[in-house]
């Protein structure tokens, strides 16, 4: 495919396909990455906080109170060595609450001199809360807390404080967890990027393979244009083949039209040569014998008439040939008939013939070119007007409905009519029953040819008013 300078890049099919695929891929992969990463982090954090809660349970179980009601935890009873190693990353702390506000009343050795800072919230008894916070050394911490209430009345003494609450906190360093999440994210991003690259390559290959037939088609078409091949050869994918078949049909029809046009031009040229030769001959004679001047004039007049009839006939045939095809054309009949009647009323105003158009449904239509319908009905109506004594009547009806329906137009005149045995003859080219009425004698022949091209028919009958009835049947729409 050549890309001209004026061609905008969005016009490229390849670009459109690739852009759409790549955009969709990128969006899908980024979304998948975000989802997987967040799922993984959630999972790891849940595991971590479950482990911490188990530690909190252990601390809670080891919590005792001395005679003064102060909490005591014997570090010897805690198995994990990290409780006692300073800044080990695992800590506990007991805060006093309620009447006695005592932050860091009791702490693990691992906390050393630091105190865990907590967001203040109200805890119901026994409920475990999870927080993320920052430790004294700036590391991220996960904290779980629970409050316990000591019933002072049990030992009956002390300072008499009733229901002192204590908050138990266990915290652990998130450093390793965060590192694990980051490692996972790195691997995930790398895998998704690799997947993206592979998918891009696949998309490129797909577009190249998918569009290859178009390239072939273009080469074949260039061959047709260069004249090396009369039509598009070869098999194409089933999506492209109908296009190729249609194009070949157009090429065939073009060739046919060109051939017919050549034949017609040739016929016309030959047809006109004869009257020209006759006139030239007569002119040569007249040059030698000037006294035959009137004979020459008469001959020129006659031969010009002959030439004119040939020209008329070929023009009409050319129009008819050009009219072929145009599928889907739909011409409402009523406006066409009314337009023709307006012309005929003027042209035949002197004869005083009444032109009547019977009411017809406005949706009656002809499947073809408007000019052809005008030509057919115009010639027939004109003929009827020439012969009618007082009245010409036209009606149209649709036989059947939808595609394949037929259009029937009936034209009656009250003229002399045509005897049944002479009706076939008048449809022939140049046939004229009465030379006294002006006309080239081509009207009916042109009508016959046009109607024949549309696969219709013309029938001549006797009209109820005594004249001629012409019944035309054409494809309807």
């Amino acid at each position, binding site marked *: 495919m050549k890309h001209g300078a004026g061609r905008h890049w969005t016009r490229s099919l390849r670009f459109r396909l690739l852009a759409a695929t790549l955009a969709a891929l990128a969006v899908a992969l980024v979304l998948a990455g975000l989802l997987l990463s967040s799922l993984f982090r959630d999972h790891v954090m849940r595991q971590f906080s479950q482990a911490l809660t188990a530690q909190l349970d252990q601390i809670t179980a080891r919590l005792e109170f001395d005679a003064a009601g102060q909490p005591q935890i014997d570090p010897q009873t805690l198995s994990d060595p990290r409780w006692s190693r300073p800044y080990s990353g695992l800590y506990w702390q007991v805060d006093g609450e309620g009447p006695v506000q005592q932050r860091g009343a009791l702490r693990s050795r691992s906390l050393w001199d630091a105190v865990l800072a907590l967001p203040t919230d109200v805890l119901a008894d026994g409920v475990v809360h999870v927080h993320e916070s920052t430790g004294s050394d700036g590391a991220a911490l996960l904290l779980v807390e629970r409050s316990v209430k000591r019933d002072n009345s049990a030992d009956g003494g002390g300072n008499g404080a009733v229901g002192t609450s204590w908050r138990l906190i266990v915290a652990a360093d998130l450093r390793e967890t965060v590192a694990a999440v980051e490692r996972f994210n790195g691997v995930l991003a790398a895998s998704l990027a690799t997947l993206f690259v592979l998918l891009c390559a696949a998309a490129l290959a797909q577009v190249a393979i998918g569009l290859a037939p178009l390239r072939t088609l273009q080469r074949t078409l260039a061959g047709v244009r260069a004249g090396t091949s009369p039509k598009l050869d070869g098999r194409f994918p089933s999506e492209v083949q109908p296009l190729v078949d249609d194009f070949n049909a157009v090429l065939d029809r073009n060739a046919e039209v060109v051939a017919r046009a050549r034949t017609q031009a040739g016929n016309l040229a030959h047809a006109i040569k004869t009257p020209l030769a006759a006139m030239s001959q007569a002119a040569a004679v007249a040059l030698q014998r000037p006294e035959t001047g009137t004979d020459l004039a008469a001959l020129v007049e006659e031969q*010009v008439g002959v030439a004119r009839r040939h020209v*008329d006939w070929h023009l009409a045939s050319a129009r008819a040939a050009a009219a072929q095809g145009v599928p889907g054309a739909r011409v409402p009949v009523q406006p066409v008939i009314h337009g023709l009647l307006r012309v005929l009323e003027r042209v035949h105003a002197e004869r005083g013939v009444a032109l009547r158009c019977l009411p017809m449904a406005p949706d009656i239509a002809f499947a073809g070119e408007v*000019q052809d319908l005008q030509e057919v009905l115009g010639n027939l109506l004109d003929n009827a007007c020439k012969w009618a004594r007082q009245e010409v009547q036209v009606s149209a009806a649709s036989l059947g409905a939808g595609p394949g329906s037929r259009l029937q137009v009936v034209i009656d005149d009250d003229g002399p009519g045509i005897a049944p045995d002479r009706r076939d003859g008048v449809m022939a080219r140049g046939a004229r029953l009465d030379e006294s009425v002006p006309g080239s004698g081509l009207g009916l022949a042109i009508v016959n040819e046009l109607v024949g091209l549309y696969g219709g028919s013309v029938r001549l009958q006797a009209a109820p008013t005594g004249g001629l009835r012409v019944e035309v049947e054409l494809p309807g729409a």
Partner: protein
Amino acid sequence: MRVLLVEDDPTLRAQLRAGLQEAGYAVDEADNGRDGHHLGASEAFDAVILDLGLPVLDGISVLKRWREAGVTLPVLILTARDSWHEKVTGIDAGADDYLAKPFHMEELLARVRALIRRAQGLASPLLQCGALTLDTRSSRVTLNGQLVTLTSHEFRLLSYLMHRPGSVVSRTELTEHLYAQDFDRDSNTIEVFVGRLRRKLPEATIETVRGMGYRLVMPP
């Protein structure tokens, strides 16, 4: 009767002019659509012969502009294209009649005669005024069946009056309709022709309406 001829082909124009003048019409000409449109819109004519394939402004456009401007002149259109599609287009643009080239001069003259007559609301080609009869087809005037010999100017004058029986026709109107634009117009010549015509017709056929013009008197 004065006719406007709008045709671009010089040969055909000359032939048409000769034919029309021979038939007793005063002829004004234009060889393109713009001049033709201007003449038709500003001068008084009894009919127009309009070719459709014209330079500068095509015939259909000229016709449409006249009709839009309310010019009701009878128009006969001429064209080499004689498909019915063209005929419908021409008539719907406001033409009164249609003639396809090539044509015979007699055919054209018959159409023009009929157009002028129909424009005056006269149905028959025979114009009658008492014992006086004018046959528009043969350009013959008879009085009680006897042929009256008239010069072409006298005939034009009588024909114009007989196309408008009973109505007063001013000298200016007569001058406008009997002579082409380039003719030396002098209303005194009208008086001379009326005088000559009166001598050939029965007494009091042409009445002078003082200060207004002339009237053809219809016998009771």
